[in-house]
């Protein structure tokens, strides 16, 4: 691994130009997640309608990896029905936690495969997953609200 394969162009681009940034209304659930080692944090909102992700909005403070991965997540998941969302989510988490041994599927992950290099840097795994874990948490909460 070298620096360039960790910080691919696409990551630096998402880092500098985050997609979907900001906290928007309406939303069904809001969560705050932190990375306890470096203090990075994200506030993330999810709006659902008929099991479709209507909006993911967020305000985050963090490193390039965490910022970019949240931005890529926005592009990948926003507007999609949950049935399509979970396979992508799972594939992303699997790749990141795969210690470089999981072959990512570009058809499923799109730009997300740019983060494959993170898997070789265990200390950055939490960075890459910060937004994704917040999304999962918020969506589960939103669903809970829906059905109770």
């Amino acid at each position, binding site marked *: 691994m070298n620096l360039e394969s960790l910080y691919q162009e696409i990551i630096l681009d998402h880092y500098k130009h985050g997609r979907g940034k900001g906290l928007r209304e309406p939303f069904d659930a809001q969560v705050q997640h*932190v990375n*306890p*080692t470096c203090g990075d944090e994200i506030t993330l909102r999810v709006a659902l309608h008929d099991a479709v992700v209507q909006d993911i909005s967020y305000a985050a403070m963090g490193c390039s990896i965490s910022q970019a991965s949240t931005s890529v997540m926005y592009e990948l998941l926003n507007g999609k029905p949950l049935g399509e969302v979970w396979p992508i989510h799972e594939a992303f988490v699997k790749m990141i936690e795969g210690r470089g041994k999981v072959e990512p599927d570009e058809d499923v992950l799109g730009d997300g495969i740019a983060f494959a290099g993170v898997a070789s*840097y*265990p*200390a*950055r795994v939490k960075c890459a997953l910060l937004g994704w874990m917040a999304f999962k948490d918020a969506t589960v909460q939103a669903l809970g609200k829906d059905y109770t």
Partner: protein
Amino acid sequence: MSPLDVATLRKDFPILSRTVRNDRDLVYLDSGATSQKPAVVLDAERDFYETRNAAVHRGAHQLAEEATDAFEMARATIAAFVGGHVSEVVFTRNATEALNLVAYAFQNATADAGPDRFVLEPGDEILITEMEHHANLVPWQQVARRTGATLRWFGVTDDGRLDFDPSMITDRTKVVSLTHQSNVLGTINPVAQVAAAAHEVGALVVVDACQSVPHMPVDVHALGADFIAFSGHKMLAPTGVGVLWGRADLLAQMPPMLTGGSMIEQVFMDHSTFAAPPQRFEAGVPNIAQAVALGVACDYLTDVGLQAIHEHEVYLTGLALEGLAGLPGIRIIGPTDLADRGGAVSFVADGIHSHDLGQVLDDSGVAVRVGHHCAWPLHRRFGVAATTRATFYLYNDEQDVAALVEGTKRALEFFA
């Protein structure tokens, strides 16, 4: 017959080739206090320092990543060793700290009006046994005193078995804590049976597995335990590392005992929130190299085979009981049959104090332990102040047992 090839195993333990007192071969029969270490474990510890030493979970550099990997892989190995999940293994200094950690969960939850499961009130009962090591007795005395709960205990029969009286387990019982194998009597307790009764009334079950995990196959789920505690130094690993295994859902509810770095989620000047287990219970830079070496010790034990180790120890115990029975004035404290029994043989000799008996054994090169072995109430139960105790492990052989019997004979003659 022993299932182990002891002669070959002994070569792995450098210390066993030293001599003591006037050039006697060392006969080490004190593994119940602490075990000796094979070279492979010492190599692992040293290798960690020479190639990967860094603070875990804190750095983003390569050394820190490698150190964290080694540490967390050791956790996974140890979890598998006792049939638990990796997130259920907490590293402590020793079993004593592990047991205190559980006791403090009750004390602190009660002080904080925390999770019900851990809150104790006057009228609630903590149930232990009369054969407990001080490590599984004194912490509960403290908790009982500070919460107003009552400490009760099962007795011990004359032949050194647990006097299990199910009627002592009632709705008032909130926690049952008992040893899996007595470090004095050698008795293996029917933990699964006690645990089932305890769970029926919703009590939590803590098992002091200090003398079982190193010596026989232990599976936390088969035991029915909610927590088990054991020490690395008694199972071929370095000093300075112990383990608390706890059921994930319980650890998740427990307040930490120690607080500080690496166990937090967020920290402000006036309050903090805490990380999920096991990190919540590992404040500060942990005993990293020791944990890594404990992982290697588990692998070594697994390779030798825990069932074989147990059978080997039972075999030696049989020889020792037989040999000592042939000497005049020797009384065994503990079962004299081999059913549900591990390799600890404690005894007293008419008219000879154990300190004196142990001294003659020491002079013969035989290292045993004398005193109350941190189980003072148990000794009082048998009307003795102190016993002489021999404990066996995978590196002991028939000759060691013969040396014990021979040395005891010499003591009887010396003080006749």
